């Protein structure tokens, strides 16, 4: 029954049971400049963070303070036109929306929203604010959102994005509306401010 899902779970189970494979979360030290997802994008974290192990997309990496369910900071470092934001579970059957060469800055929140909705089969996702901003020393967009996750916890989020040389650069942060979002939103904003792209 359902071989695809089954083998995926089996694989996860094996990974979970190998302590050596599970130690790969990497420290991101305060003040030390690091590159993101083997791209030219760098940040200098103003406090210690953890880079979570695991690969959800070629140009994507996720940092956290307390675990992905409590604070999730994700970098999208140069998504190419024609590609989705994160890896698709099934390109054919469950395609994700794609960034394209004609995508406008003001449409990036829609792309992000549609990605979350499609990947999680969410219904309740609201973009609450879309503002012009400077990001990576270019004109960019800042947006805020709120959604109800499948674990029935309401989460809030904020993201900065810009399109540079035809590629999408974006940093997003989301956390439970209760306590966690307010507690660490400034930590996220300082990371976004420290981001550089030569």
């Amino acid at each position, binding site marked *: 029954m359902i071989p695809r899902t089954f083998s995926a*779970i089996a694989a996860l189970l094996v990974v979970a049971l190998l302590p050596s494979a599970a130690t790969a979360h990497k420290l991101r030290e305060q003040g030390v400049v690091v590159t993101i997802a083997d791209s030219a994008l760098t940040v200098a974290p103003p406090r210690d963070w953890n880079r979570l192990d695991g690969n959800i997309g070629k140009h994507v990496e996720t940092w956290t303070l307390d675990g992905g369910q409590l604070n999730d900071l994700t970098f999208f470092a140069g998504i190419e036109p024609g590609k989705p934001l994160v890896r698709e579970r099934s390109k054919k059957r469950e395609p994700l929306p794609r960034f394209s060469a004609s995508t406008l800055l003001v449409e990036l929140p829609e792309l992000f929203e549609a990605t979350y909705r499609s990947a999680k089969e969410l219904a309740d996702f609201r973009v609450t604010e879309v503002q012009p901003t400077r990001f990576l020393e270019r004109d960019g967009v800042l947006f805020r959102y709120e959604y109800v996750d499948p*674990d029935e916890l309401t989460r809030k989020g904020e993201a900065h994005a810009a399109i540079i040389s035809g590629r999408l650069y974006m940093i997003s942060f989301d956390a439970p509306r209760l306590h966690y979002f307010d507690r660490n939103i400034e930590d996220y904003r300082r990371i976004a401010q420290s981001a550089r792209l030569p």
Partner: protein
Amino acid sequence: MRALFGLMAAAVLCGAIISVPAQAQERSAVRPGFVLPPQSGKKILLLRPSVRVAEQSTGGMAEPRAEWTDQARENIDAALAELQRQLGNTVIAAPEAYGEDARRVAEHQALFAAVSRAVIEYQFFVGNRLPTKKRDNKAGQFDWSLGPDVGKLPGADQADYGLFLLTNDHYGSTGRKMLQIVGLVAGVGVTSGVHAGYAGLVDLKTGDLLWLNADGQMGGDVREPDGAMKRVRQLLEDFPGSAIPKEVAVAEAGPEAKP
């Protein structure tokens, strides 16, 4: 964004680590600096505990048993009150909540579940510990919180601490086999019957998690008053200020041996 993919993995991880021999995994922790001296007369608000008791049949299907669940709830409530009385604390049950209060309780319970998942995944499972937590942990770090909004929960103004309690039992019935898939994939056997307990003590002023005990292999048959007492003792054996003697490696006959 990672949570898109993480949730299933996390749960499988939790399941897996609980089946792994205990040395790879811790199961309880106390916030540094937190002490609860015996006979200090603190009031503890008990949030409606989730107590489920089911019979596990051959296929592993849990069949809920109403009278067991009722019995377990009564037994656990009684055991809890008795043990806290011995510790000099008073347990008060959270009042029934309505409307916005009820919604707020539900959101906090969901947050407690999320925080517990994170603690188990990223702290108790030492091999998977987050580097920031690992480093800090040399000083016995245990820094998790539900946030100060817990102070707005119904009944919170009447108490010092909040106790979240979750216990889930599946008793094996005759003929119960090992779960072969798990054994096959991981080389780990799952014992007959599932006995999981989670308990968390929260400071109702700050929301800080003062103590969490998460154990997937608990003893004590909660269907019996004695067993419930044992379970609650086990859940509370690391309870801050607790003088409850630890039940060191008492060889469990295993509830699966019982009907």
